[in-house]
């Protein structure tokens, strides 16, 4: 191998650079995303009623799509009721339905959104639950 030493030296530098994101985070705290769904509003409900409009799995994956569909149905078609896969009916409203149960925006919405660095613009206009503001003021 011609210039073997240089090549191996270059490879080592390359490997160090590539693994830098991993090696640098050794020993650092691993931020675990832990959205909370134990608001007083939810805990008040009897256990059998503690269900979101759709299954947890569906909501985790599809809530963003669902919210956009809800928005279009309400604003553009004037349809305000959502019939879920179980046949149960809900009023479609971020402020008046979702956040009535999930009154902990910072622990429910922001927890994951901050982690994955997405900034949904919902709260530019929609009013977030009051409780939240009090908590933030106390901190």
């Amino acid at each position: 191998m011609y210039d073997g030493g240089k090549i191996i030296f270059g490879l080592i530098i390359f490997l160090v650079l590539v693994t830098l994101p991993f090696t640098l985070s050794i020993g650092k705290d691993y931020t675990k995303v832990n959205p909370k769904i134990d608001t007083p509003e939810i805990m008040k409900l009897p256990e059998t009623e503690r269900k979101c409009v759709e299954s947890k799995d569906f909501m985790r994956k599809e809530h963003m799509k669902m919210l956009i569909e809800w928005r279009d149905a309400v604003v553009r078609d004037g349809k305000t009721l959502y019939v879920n896969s179980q046949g149960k009916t809900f009023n479609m409203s971020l402020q008046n339905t979702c956040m009535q149960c999930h009154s902990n925006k910072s622990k429910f919405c922001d927890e994951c959104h901050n982690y994955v660095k997405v900034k949904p613009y919902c709260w530019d206009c929609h009013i977030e639950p009051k409780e939240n503001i009090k908590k933030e003021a106390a901190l």
Partner: protein
Amino acid sequence: MSNINRREFLKILGIGTFMGLGGWSIFEVVGKGEIEAFVEKYKKAPEALQAKRWAMVIDLKKLDQKIIHDCTEVCHRIHNVPKILNPKEEIKWIWEEKFKNAFPEMKDDYMSPEIKNMPVLVLCNHCENPPCVRVCPTKATFKRKDGIVMMDMHRCIGCRFCMAGCPYGARSFNWRDPRQYVKNENPEFPFRMKGVVEKCTFCYERLDRGLPPACVEASKGAIMYGDITDPNSEIRKILSSNFAIRRKAKLGTKPSVYYLL
């Protein structure tokens, strides 16, 4: 395969074609109950008030300062409309105008000062032929099936073409974040953000819940509303027995707000 006859061959060919055309996938989908088209996911509330075209009649004889104040106050309060005093930046959904300004084409040199300065409540006219909708590049403002000229704040890019298009000045632009200018917010209704245009929405959110528009409720009978396509509606009866005018009707926008003198 050697002893297959013509009839057998055609049968196999037929079944094969059927399956090939998506026959099998149909069974799969039906089995899982996943045909969404059959399930109506979004519905109107049963108590929602419906009309072919909503319209309003405002009786100017019954208007006084208190009613005008109550109507504007309740509208702006429940819709989180900010109170900005600078007239260049103010936001208004419903407001008071002098007769001579609300109906400029009727101004006359010999008109009595009482009539000239008579207070008139003005708001979005929810035109049948709305120029604001025609000029909106993003379809953020659109006409609902029931005639209400609506705003979809999510789509508004703040170009203000609609403000230039509206001959009634019924639209306001948010020059600044409205939040700090609302004292007692209504937690059931959203705000708007800096950079969007807003206006009266005929209380679509109340109609959808079976309630009349807030100004109608606060007006003590001075404002009436109803379906103008229904000959038995309250407003049609009023219009058939009274002389009513509309703002700048000659422009051809066909406003849905009528005024009784």
